[in-house]
Structure formats: structure tokens, C-alpha cells
């Protein structure tokens, strides 16, 4: 049995934030869950996926966040508790659905989880999704710990049903990826079927209907504000006259900080956990009781702007600090020492930090950036494309996945990236205004996510570029989730269809479509060359399973390779391919047999034919 299905209320477990969130969903009796995988939210989904195999929970990996939200919205409007999970940038994709869903509302509880990523540990930006709650007019909750995330999520479903609105549940990486001891609650049996009651004048958002619905939404928001005023998640601790308003993980840093500064008795903390609408009266009263207030929140001055507006309304002139005066940053994530320092500085508390150590004589340590795995099929494809495009002036828009790492030298196959699917759309623009050959790269999962509309556009508007679709049969980067192109039967999952990328590309109207097996280097180079010559839109589909996933599935391993004495030290293998299985000792090139996955690409490109499979060594 999956550990999160344990029926023992009160039992304590060591849970990752994302596990605690999944458990919270189960304790709320969530019946339908949908997602597009994205770090830092991925483990919520992978747990739901496993749990759905052995419980009544329905879970799906949807093609993108917009679709995921639409699926969940329909289920919720049929009275079934639903949850939609995404990383922060996924919310941009779902936003079209979100903003009008706010008008329509829900009947069964719907919680939309957005996992923000301050510092961009694994994201292209660090947008602060709290503004979505303002933009859409939806209630929002933000936990400060794993235990609270679990309990709060349960309450978020009740709140959603009480207000008949989706609730935005906002976490940050340090909530998702921190573990702590969590005490379990009661599991609730999910109600898995519902009924949709026709009511087109409330559900079909033509202008006349939406005009009414917007007014209704504002009424619901008034009610939400009252609930926020009285929510246990907006809590005040301490009686001092130095006020601190904080949220999420910043609350923990504040609690530790005031202890270390020894100012518990002088401070008063308002932790905002129900953060949209903000509790107006509670905050005003709080401000009235303080001499000065510091607002500690990662990201944008979301609370700060609101608190300052409340103070203005109430005619309060106390000093309210935050980001504006350069005290705290809008950049990256916070850490405990940084928050402690800001508190000390703002409230004028002396604090002698512990002695540091002098690092000035530490030599530069070679960097260890992540790289494509040894034998990753993407490396082989990039190599072949580079060979095929030799001598050409190129622009290479790329996309989001492991293969983004191809932008690093020596592969250097990535020139432009803004979001999921942007490789295809931007290729249209680049090829229109430039004479350079545009070659773009997109992964299989990303192609389904948002690549298809760009390709349709390219065919319709007669653009001119080559799109290489890197089909490795899985969503690799986020931890190997399936996507619509995956053969689920082969992985022993029943009840799935399968969409062929090649069929889609042809159906869309692309006239030049070729398929390569990237481990066959020469053949791949020749095929790509042909595609590059084609005037118009050509697509090359590069098919080879993700090496790491194949290993995880315990697929039979290929024999590793070794560098024989024929090697003359040209180092083409290292300079052009950069497979991390290579290393140099005393000026001789070696292959680490543990890392080498036997893809044979290096052996095919070695001018001396010095690289041989290990079995031939004897």
C-alpha cells in the first residue's frame, strides 16, 4: 500500500512537503487530480499517479496546464472535489481558463496549486504568482511548513465550496522540497461521480452572462474578505510594538531570527496564510498597535503594497518597511541569516554575528554544472545536427527539457528560449526576418504541451525552418512522467491511448518529415542534411529512449566502450561530443565503464577508430 494511504490518524511520518500536500488532498477527499509535471511541484503528481493505481482517486497527466485546469474545472462544476497542480509558469498557460473560471466559479471544491520557484532552482523565471489571485479575483492560501500545507489544503477545499470559487494554493520550492515530521489526519472517502446541472445563463460566458458573473465574483470576494479576517491562518503572535508581517517560509526565518536577536518581547508577528483577499481590519488593527512594521516576503512587494494602502486608508503614518527602501530584496529566495540581519537593521538591534571564516585563499574550484547524461540520445542528435549544418550560419531556438543543456559548449545548440513551446513559434519569426538557417529543437512532451500550434502556424504561414523533435519517449527532466506519445501498455499501464508524433506532424501538413535513430551517426547526418536543404517547414523526429529512464526500467544494457591504444589523442570525442563518461589521466583519454552506457556514438566519430566495445578487449 502507498504510505500516504495509511489510515492511522495521529501517526507521525517524515514527509516531503509535496508528500504532505498529496496527503492533504487525500484527507480532503479529492477525487479528480490533474497536472502537467513541473519542478518543484512534480512529487505531488507522481504520488497521486501511484495512489490512483490503488485507490478511487482519478489522476491524469494532462497535455498542458490549461487542459489540466479545464478537466478539473468541469469535474468541480459537476460537484466533484478536484485539484489541479502546476509549477508557477504553468499558471501562465492555464491563465486563459483561470480568469473566466473565476467568474463561473465551482460547485465542488477546486484547489489550484501553484509551486513558485524563488531563485529559479529549476525554472526560467521567478514570477510571483500571488498576483494571479489578485488578477483573477480568487482566494489564495499560503502555508509555511509541510504540516501546515497538509492541514491548510484540507481547509482550502472547504473554503472553495463555501465560496463556490476555485482556491489558489501557493507554495514555494522550500515548502515543496522540505521534509518534516507530519502528523496524519483522517482520510476522507472521495465522492468520485457528480452531476452537471445545466444552467447556461450562469455557465456560458457570453458578454451578457459575464457581466452578471463579474458582479457575483465581487460579492463572493467580499465574503472571502470576511473569512480572511477571521481565518486561523492569519495569526498574530507576540505583544511588542515592533510589527512584522510575513508569509510562507519567511515566517520561519522571522521566528528563528527574533529568537536569535532576543527580541521576542518587543515584536509582534502577523503571519498571513490566507493572503487574498488580505484581512483589511486585522491588518489595520495590527498597524495601530505597532510603532513600526517590517514586511518580510520573498518575491514581489505583494503584501507590502496592500498593507501600505490599508495604512493610507486608515490615516496611519507609521513607518512600514519592506522592499521599497532597499532593506529586503525582490530577488531570489531569502535565508534565515539574511532575514535576521534585516530585522536587526530595521529595528536597530545590535547583533554580533558569529565569526566567519576567511575564504580568500581557497583556490578556484572547477564548476560542476549539470550535463546531459553519458549516452543521452540528445547529445547524439545535437552532434549530428552540428555536423549536418557545418558551414551554415544558423539560429537555433530551443525549448524546455533536459535538452536545453545542449546550449552549453561544445554542442552549443540553443540560441533562444523563453517558454514552453517557444522554439516553434520563435522559429517562424527568426526565419521571416533573417537569412540564417533556422534549426529549432523541441522535446516530445513539450511538443504536445505547446509545440503543435506553432507548427500549424508555420505550415499555414509558409515559414522556412527545420524543427528537430527530440523524441525520447518520456518527460525526462521532471522525473520521467508519461506524455501522450508514450506507449503506456509497454509499461504495464492499462487504459491509455497513444498519439504518434509523426502522424501529428504529417496531419498538420508538414511536407518534409524524416525520422532518425540518432545513435546511427552517419545516417542521421545525411538525413538531417536533406531536411536542412528543404525550403519550407521540415521536421526531423529523432527517436531514441531516454538513457536514464531505460536504466531505471532495467532494460538490457549495452556493452560499455573503451579507448584502445590506437588513440592518437585528437580528442574529437571530448571536444565535439563532451560525453561525461570521458576523462583524461596523464594526457591519455579514458572512458569510465560505469558511466558509459554504450551508445557507441564516440566510437563512430573517432577518426582513428580507437574506441571499441569492451568485449573486444580480450
Amino acid at each position, binding site marked *: 500500500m502507498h504510505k500516504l494511504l495509511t489510515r492511522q490518524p495521529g501517526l507521525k511520518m517524515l514527509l516531503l512537503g509535496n508528500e504532505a500536500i498529496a496527503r492533504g488532498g487525500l484527507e480532503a477527499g479529492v477525487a479528480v487530480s490533474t497536472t502537467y509535471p513541473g519542478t518543484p511541484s512534480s512529487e505531488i503528481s507522481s504520488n497521486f499517479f501511484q495512489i490512483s493505481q490503488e485507490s478511487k482517486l482519478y489522476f491524469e497527466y494532462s497535455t498542458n496546464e490549461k487542459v489540466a485546469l479545464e478537466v478539473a474545472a468541469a469535474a468541480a462544476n459537476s460537484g466533484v472535489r478536484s485539484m489541479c497542480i502546476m509549477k508557477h509558469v504553468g499558471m501562465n498557460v492555464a491563465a486563459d481558463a483561470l480568469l473566466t473560471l473565476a467568474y463561473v466559479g465551482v460547485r465542488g471544491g477546486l484547489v489550484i496549486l501553484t509551486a513558485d520557484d524563488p531563485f529559479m532552482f529549476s525554472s526560467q523565471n521567478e514570477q510571483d504568482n500571488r498576483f494571479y489571485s489578485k488578477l483573477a479575483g480568487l482566494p489564495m492560501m499560503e502555508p509555511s511548513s509541510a504540516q501546515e500545507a497538509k492541514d491548510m489544503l484540507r481547509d482550502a477545499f472547504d473554503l472553495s465550496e463555501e465560496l463556490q470559487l476555485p482556491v489558489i494554493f501557493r507554495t514555494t520550492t522550500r515548502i515543496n522540497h522540505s521534509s518534516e515530521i507530519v502528523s496524519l489526519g483522517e482520510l476522507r472517502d472521495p465522492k468520485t461521480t457528480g452531476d452537471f446541472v445545466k444552467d447556461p445563463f450562469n455557465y456560458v460566458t457570453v458578454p451578457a452572462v459575464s457581466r452578471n458573473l463579474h458582479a457575483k465574483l465581487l460579492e463572493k470576494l467580499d465574503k472571502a474578505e470576511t473569512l480572511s479576517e477571521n481565518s486561523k491562518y492569519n495569526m498574530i503572535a507576540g505583544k511588542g510594538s515592533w510589527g512584522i508581517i510575513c508569509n510562507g517560509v519567511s515566517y520561519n526565518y522571522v521566528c528563528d531570527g527574533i529568537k536569535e536577536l532576543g527580541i521576542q518581547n518587543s515584536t509582534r508577528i502577523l503571519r498571513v496564510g490566507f493572503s487574498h483577499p488580505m484581512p483589511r481590519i486585522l491588518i489595520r488593527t495590527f498597524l495601530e498597535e505597532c510603532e513600526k512594521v517590517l514586511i518580510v516576503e520573498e518575491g514581489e512587494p505583494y503584501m507590502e503594497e496592500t498593507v501600505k494602502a490599508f495604512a493610507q486608508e486608515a490615516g496611519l503614518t507609521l513607518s512600514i518597511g519592506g522592499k521599497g527602501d532597499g532593506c529586503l530584496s525582490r530577488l531570489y529566495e531569502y535565508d534565515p541569516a539574511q532575514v535576521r540581519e534585516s530585522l536587526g537593521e530595521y529595528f536597530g538591534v545590535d547583533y554580533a554575528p558569529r565569526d566567519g571564516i*576567511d575564504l580568500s585563499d581557497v583556490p578556484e574550484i*572547477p564548476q560542476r554544472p549539470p550535463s546531459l547524461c553519458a549516452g543521452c540520445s540528445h547529445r547524439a542528435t545535437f552532434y549530428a545536427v552540428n555536423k549536418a549544418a557545418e558551414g551554415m550560419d544558423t539560429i537555433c531556438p530551443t525549448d524546455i527539457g533536459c535538452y536545453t543543456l545542449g546550449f552549453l559548449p561544445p554542442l552549443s545548440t540553443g540560441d533562444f528560449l523563453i517558454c514552453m513551446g517557444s522554439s516553434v513559434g520563435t522559429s517562424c519569426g527568426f526565419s521571416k526576418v533573417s537569412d540564417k538557417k533556422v534549426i529549432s529543437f523541441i522535446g516530445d512532451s513539450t511538443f504536445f504541451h505547446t509545440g503543435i500550434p506553432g507548427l500549424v502556424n508555420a505550415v499555414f504561414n509558409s515559414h522556412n525552418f527545420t524543427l528537430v523533435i527530440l523524441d525520447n519517449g518520456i518527460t525526462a527532466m521532471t522525473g520521467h512522467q508519461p506524455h501522450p506519445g508514450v506507449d503506456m501498455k509497454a509499461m504495464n499501464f492499462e487504459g491509455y491511448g497513444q498519439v504518434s508524433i509523426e502522424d501529428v506532424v504529417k496531419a498538420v501538413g508538414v511536407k518534409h518529415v524524416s525520422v532518425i535513430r540518432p545513435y546511427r551517426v552517419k545516417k542521421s547526418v545525411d538525413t538531417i542534411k536533406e531536411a536542412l536543404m528543404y525550403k519550407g517547414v521540415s521536421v526531423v523526429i529523432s527517436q531514441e529512449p531516454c538513457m536514464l529512464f531505460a536504466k531505471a526500467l532495467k532494460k538490457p544494457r549495452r556493452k560499455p566502450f573503451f579507448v584502445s591504444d590506437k588513440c592518437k589523442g585528437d580528442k574529437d570525442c571530448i571536444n565535439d561530443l563532451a560525453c561525461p563518461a570521458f576523462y583524461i589521466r596523464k594526457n591519455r583519454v579514458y572512458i569510465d565503464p560505469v558511466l558509459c552506457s554504450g551508445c557507441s556514438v564516440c566510437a563512430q566519430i573517432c577518426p582513428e577508430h580507437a574506441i571499441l566495445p569492451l568485449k573486444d578487449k580480450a
Partner: protein
Amino acid sequence: MKPTRLIIVAVGGQGNLLASRVIGEAALMADVPVRMSEIHGMAQRGGVVESSIVFGDAQSTIISDGEADVLVGFEPSETLRALNKCHPGTVVISNLAPLSPFTVTVGNGIYPELKVIQSLIRSKTAKLIAFNAESMAREAGNILSVNMVLLGALIQTGKIPLTRETVKEAIRTKTKKVFVETNLKAFELGFSTADSMA
């Protein structure tokens, strides 16, 4: 309970996350307050994995620069890189088997000498326990049990509020059955090595 802060750094694939989980489970068994955080964005692609573990009365799950009381490094150059997390009273435990980053292979950077790494750490912190954990893992029967070897050494220092028995119990109940025996052996080897160096 006064907070104790532990940082573990490793290269993706070295089993740092399992070591952290064993520590967390042991803390749960022993009723020691524990919070931990991990960054494993692209760990599988050979990058650096860092876990922070905070015992005692603190709410933060991460550790600021200069505030780790104990540092465990699974790879010598990574131990050195994490020195910014330490203070003069920090106890450092490091594996001495290097995993040369690919940047060195392509000629971008020079791997620092092991002797230099050790003397730098030793001169700036309270104590360094350094040995080749890889050969010990091999001795225990599984090269992948480097994490358990270093865990053994960590527990021997007495710097974190967990006993040898509790951690062994956590290994017994929370690691894969087929590996329990080698894991325990690796743990004991690490423990006695640190003991002999004390």
C-alpha cells in the same frame, strides 16, 4: 533543544538524499525535532546535490552561509566548495575519493590537490575527518554505500543528536531490504574509521 545544523553535499547519484532520509527517520524514531531541505533540481544530470538538516528548536529548513555546525562532503572538491557554509567551530567529514568534474576533462579548471583541500579545511574549521569512503564502501560489498560509510563517521562524532543504535535501526527499516546488510556494514566501517581517527 538548541539547534544543530548539518549540511550534506554530494554529486548527483551518490545517495545523499537517502542518507538524509535515514537521518530524518532516525530523528523521528528518537523524537528529535528535525527539519530538512534539499535541492536536487538537475541532480541526475551530474550536478551538485545539497541537503540541509536542522535538529532542535528552529523552524527554518535551510542553513545560511557560515551557520552549519557539521558538514559532510561526499566528494572532496565539493566539501571544499561548501566551506562557505562553515564557521570556525564546524566539524567536517569528507570522503577523499575525487569525482573529477567534466569541466576538468575539457580543460576548464584544475582539480585542487587532495592535500591542499585537507589542509585548507583543517586550518579553518574545528576538525576534519577525511578518508576514502569509496574503498570502504567496496569493502562493505557495495560501492554505492559511500553514503552509509559517511553516515557512520558522522554519528561517531557525536555532533548530531542521534545515537548509533537509532540510526542503525533506521537503516534496517528504511533502506531497501537487499542492501540492509551491506549498508549496516558500511555504516560500521565508517563509524570505526572515524573512531580510530579521533
